């Protein structure tokens, strides 16, 4: 589904992604871990099309389409969803009105007929129940006055409503208490299917106890330095990142010789 080949990207002239390679197939869940500043959130932003990143090399394909050629809104309509680490507040715009606008754009792009108000409402209720999102939050202004946890849960509710192919969750677990983490994880587990894929960006192994990944990758210094299965996450939890850093720099100095 997603194929990233030798992706390099700069921000303000500084190279931040230094040759990322990643294959994600439908039905898979990939976790990307790594220390602060390793480029995890940058990777998410580049995939979503944030414009302050400059792509200097490499390719990204989504089901055979060149993702890097698309504007952010087209990527979204093609099925890329980013659950933001810091969701923004938009006063006066109701959550529901916003979702209706988004969904109708996506449906137009996919040549689907528009949903009637009744159908939309029915869908809203079902998805709210699925991800345990309170109706009162759905009717409020978009993220306005939401707690950190409520904002994160709203991201998952939106994910449920927009039914993307590829969901990238950027530290969705950060700032969640254990109950909220459980609710968010349950929601995502229910949304998993053979047709969609998830990329979870996280610092902690904790999330992966709830959402079990098929693959775990470690991002360090703009590159994926290690890939494995869920056991890798446990190893990281136990040993931290330092051994990987040392290994990486060791290799680097060897290469220089």
């Amino acid at each position: 589904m997603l194929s990233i080949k030798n992706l390099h990207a700069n921000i303000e002239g500084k190279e931040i992604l230094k040759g990322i390679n990643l294959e994600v197939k439908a039905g898979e869940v990939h976790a990307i871990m790594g220390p602060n500043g390793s480029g995890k959130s940058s990777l998410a932003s580049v995939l979503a099309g944030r414009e302050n990143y400059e792509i200097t090399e490499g390719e990204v394909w989504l089901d055979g389409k060149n993702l890097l050629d698309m504007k952010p809104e087209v990527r979204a309509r093609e099925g890329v969803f980013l659950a933001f680490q810091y969701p923004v507040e938009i006063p006066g715009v109701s959550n529901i009105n916003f979702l209706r606008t988004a969904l109708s754009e996506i449906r137009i792009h996919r040549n689907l007929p528009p949903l009637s108000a009744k159908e939309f409402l029915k869908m809203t209720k079902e998805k709210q129940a699925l991800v345990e999102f309170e109706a009162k939050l759905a009717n409020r202004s978009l993220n306005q006055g939401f707690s950190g946890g409520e904002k994160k849960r709203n991201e998952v509710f939106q994910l449920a409503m927009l039914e993307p192919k590829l969901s990238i969750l950027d530290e969705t677990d950060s700032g969640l208490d254990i109950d909220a983490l459980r609710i968010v994880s349950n929601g995502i587990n229910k949304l998993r299917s053979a047709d969609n894929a998830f990329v979870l960006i996280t610092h902690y192994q904790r999330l992966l106890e709830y959402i079990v990944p098929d693959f775990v990758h470690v991002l360090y210094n703009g590159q994926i330095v290690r890939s494995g299965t869920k056991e890798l996450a446990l190893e990281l939890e136990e040993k931290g990142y330092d051994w990987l850093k040392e290994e990486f720099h060791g290799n680097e100095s060897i290469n220089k010789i």
Partner: protein
Amino acid sequence: MEKDDLMLEQLANREYEFGFVTAIDMDISEIGLNEDTVRFISAKKNEPQWLLDWRMKGFKAFQKQEMPQWQNFKMPEIDFQSISYYAAPKQQAKYASLDEVDPELLRTFEKLGIPMSEQKHLAGVAVDVVFDSVSVTTTYKKHLNELGIIFCSISDAVKEHPELIQKYLGSVVPHTDNVFASLNTAVFSDGSFVYIPKGVRCPMELSTYFRINAENTGQFERTLIIADEDSYVSYLEGCTAPMRDENQLHAAVVELIAMKGAEIKYSTVQNWYPGDKEGKGGIFNFVTKRGACRGERAKISWTQVETGSAITWKYPSILLQGDYSSGEFYSVAVTNNMQIADTGTKIYHLGAHTKSRIISKGISAGKGQNSYRGLVQMGPKAAYARNFTQCDSLLIGDLCGAHTFPYIESKNNTATIEHEATTSKIGEDQVFYLNQRGIDAEQAIALIVNGYAKDVLNQLPMEFAVEAQKLLSLTLEGSVG
């Protein structure tokens, strides 16, 4: 950056939708302003002597007055001698039915989105159209007549209801009020008149559409609305003008009078031609609007959506004379490109227990400059009076400006005044967030701006709220920075 440039370019290339000129035979007075001009207009309209006398008083006051200098922009030189003060479609000025109206004129109305032939069948809106200087037609008149409601052009009201005009015209905005109000007194061409009798709730929105068509003309309409005891009326005005390189002057006066227990809701969607992106042309919109709550529990509310004009200079005001009377001012003012708006309200709390609420939402984009200027005055008798003001500014891009000038005066220490103000910027983060959900930048800006202005748009009658939302989006199209 590239994306921004592209969008700014799109914005610049977007044309003013109502910029067409109607090819129609016009009866236009010679340019220039002197006593003869005033007599000419009065004679054209077959006015009684008392009205001519009043116009003359206005003209004398105008000659003595100076241009205001306190506003937050440099007052442009206006050559009052280069303007024509009267322009009317040449045919018979008043029509008994729509069939008699010049078909070209009807086509104009259709372009403006007010197909009058259909309006007749639509429930809820009665329209008076002032085309340049003359009121062309008033639909729905008969139905309103049955309720005793008078809704007609001010010229007709002078003929048919002279006692009301003589009593109330100029009673809220005197002929000496300010230079533009004095000018309007001298040369006002036409406008609307509304009278709602005691205890009557006007069953439909009353609406006037103003259109400047002819070149080198000014538009000086005069509106007078009287709501007698315990009556209710909701009134809306809209306006457009052709695109021209020269600036055109619009100096209207609106007077509202609400008696004991009466309520007047006055809504404006102002979309005069704003000039091009370099600031060439556009309407100078210098308007005096004032309402008086004359009796107990009277209520006046002004709602304005100001998206057009090169310069907007306007402060719809309310005199809260009756005890327990209340006033509201809801405003959205947008300035894009080189537009300037200096707008706000003045609320005079004279009676006890009077209440007022001001919600002002300024939106600046391009190189637009937007100023809120407001006065809240608590008089010595305004015991327990209350005011709440909320004054927000939204900036789009780095080249625009937002300014706030709130004035507060209290002569009664039981009165309370609250003022809240915020300034915010449409962030790239907000736009990107919406992009990431499949919404393009244009629509994202529209959503954000409409969300921001919601408290004001909610005050508009339903059908006009939708219109105003579209207008806001159009005015700001591509202005994300």
